[in-house]
C-alpha cells in the first residue's frame, strides 16, 4: 500500500484512523490514571509515616505506572 492509498483507504481512512485512535487513546488514559493513582499512593504512604521505598512492593517513584 502506498502513501496515497493509505491516506484515502477508499474513503474508509477516517474510520480506520478513528478506531486506532480510540484504542490508543483509551489505553493512554488508563496508563495516565494508573500513574496518578500510584503517585497518590506514594504520597499517602509518606503521609502515613512509612517509607514507600522500603516496602517490599514499592513502585518506582515517578516511574512505571
Amino acid at each position, binding site marked *: *500500500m502506498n502513501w496515497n492509498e493509505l491516506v484515502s483507504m477508499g474513503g*474508509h481512512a477516517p474510520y480506520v484512523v478513528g478506531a486506532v485512535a480510540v484504542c490508543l487513546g483509551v489505553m493512554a488514559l*488508563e496508563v495516565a490514571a494508573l500513574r496518578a*493513582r500510584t503517585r497518590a499512593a506514594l504520597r*499517602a*504512604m509518606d503521609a502515613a509515616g512509612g517509607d514507600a521505598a522500603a516496602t*517490599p512492593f514499592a513502585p518506582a517513584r515517578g516511574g512505571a505506572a
Partner: protein
Amino acid sequence: MPAAWNHVAAPAGKGPPADRFVPWFGAAAGALLLAGLAFGLFVAPVDPVQGDAARIGVVHVPAAWTSLLIYIAMAACGAAALGGRSKGPALWMSALAPTGALFTVIALATGALASRPSSGAWWTWDARLTAELILLFLYIGFLSLRSAIDDPRRADRAGAVLVIVGVVNVPILYFSVLWWNTLHQGAAAGLARATDTAHAMLPAMLVMALAFWTYSAAVSLARVRCALLEREADHRRLRRGEPA
C-alpha cells in the same frame, strides 16, 4: 488462583518482582502494538468485500478477545475468592476489571466504526453486539458494586458472585454468530469457522492480541501493586490511631 501469583505482586522477600515485570510487559506490549498495527495497516491485503474498513478488525477483534479473556480470568479469581481464604484472588479480580471494561469499550467503539462503512449502521440490536454490551454492563456493575460496599470482605464476595453469575454471558457472546442469524460477521478465528477476511488479517490480529494481553498483564500488576501500597498506608495510619 495459585499462591505464586500473590507473591508476584506482594513479594515478602528480597525484592519486588512486580517492579521487574511491569516495565518488561509494558515494553513488550508497546513493541507488539507497533508491529501489529504496521502489519494490519500496511502489509495485510485489502479485503475485496469490505475494503480497507476491514483493517479495523486488527484492533476490534483482539480487543473483543481480550475483553472476554479478562472476564474469564476474573471469574476464575472470583471462584478462588469464594472457595478460599486468601485475599489475593479478590485483589486480582478488582485489578483486572477496569482493564476488561476498557477493552470492552474499545471493542464496542471500533465495532461501530467498522460497521458504519460496511452496513451503514453504527449500531444494531444484534445478538453479538448486545452480548458485548451486556459484558460492559457486567464490568461496570462489578466496579460499582465493589465501590458501594464499605466492608472489603463483603465487597469481594458480592463482586465474586456477580462475576460468576455473569459467566453465562460468555458462551452466548462467543457462539452468538453461530446460534443466530446476525448482522455481525462470523467468528474471526477459533472454534467457530473463520471468515476469509479474518484469514488475511489473522497474523496481525494475533500479534495485536498478544500486545493487548501483555498490556493487560502490565497494568493489572501495576494496579495490584498500587492497591497493596494503599492498603499498607491505611494499616500504618490505623496503627498510629489515625482514621484510614
